[in-house]
């Protein structure tokens, strides 16, 4: 079974060095877990990020015959967002502009690798 508190604590560990928040979304774009600042807007941000992810996933399959969307970065004026798939869910990190894309990618991938097996078990069980 999924332990919500434990999951939130794991996501919270990524919120250092300029990373403001980390969220986990399911395949429908609904929020599964949230850790960090801005929890009031978390539903809106989760809907927006999932929209972007699914749009690029769908068009990537059609245009580039891409079987898998690995990563999406959004580079905005005042911050950065990185998204990746983990098990059947989407993991997103929101960070300050000061956080380098490479570091954000490394953090995202490290957290994704850590959560992959437990979330696969939850998905299959």
């Amino acid at each position, binding site marked *: 079974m999924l332990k919500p508190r434990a999951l939130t604590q794991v996501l919270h560990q990524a919120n250092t060095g300029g990373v403001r928040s980390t969220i986990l979304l399911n395949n429908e774009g609904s929020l599964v877990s949230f850790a960090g600042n801005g929890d009031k807007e978390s539903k809106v941000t989760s809907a927006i990020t999932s929209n972007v992810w699914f*749009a690029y996933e769908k068009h990537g399959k059609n245009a580039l015959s891409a079987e898998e969307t690995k990563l*999406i970065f959004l*580079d905005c004026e005042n911050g950065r967002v990185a998204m990746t798939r983990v098990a059947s869910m989407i993991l997103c990190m929101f960070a300050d502009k000061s956080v380098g894309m490479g570091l954000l990618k490394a953090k995202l991938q490290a957290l994704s690798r850590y959560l992959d097996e437990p979330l696969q078990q939850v998905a299959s069980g």
Partner: protein
Amino acid sequence: CRSSFLPSRVLPFEVVLLRFVAMADELEDFVRKLLPTVDGLEAILITDRDGVIVLKASTPSMPEAAARPNFLATYPISCEQASKLGLGTNQNLVCMYDNYQVVQMNYLPLVVTLLAREDANTGLLLGLRASLDSCLEELKQAVEVP
């Protein structure tokens, strides 16, 4: 002659058109020269917000389906949504697939799309923005409705 009826500070339409064609040729040449500067870069596409191509420079191995409006128009919609995340206006988007990566840059009403192989240097691709800034400003002025 048409020009004899126009005030001196307004150019005749034919001259404006010739200037635009010359600018477009110069831009296409400039963009084509940028292609080999990053290893793995397959195409540079400048489009409007509907995904219609304004300018294109590509290698023969570029997948043609990636030049279709429905793929290229994904960014303007995503850009608008991403700008509502509370992080300011979206400037760039990088999407990595298994064989390709797509870098899209906000110059709305224009969009610059860079299509590259997955192993191309993303930092260098994003760095091309500095080279494109000056020529895109000119093109934006030509495209924008005053």
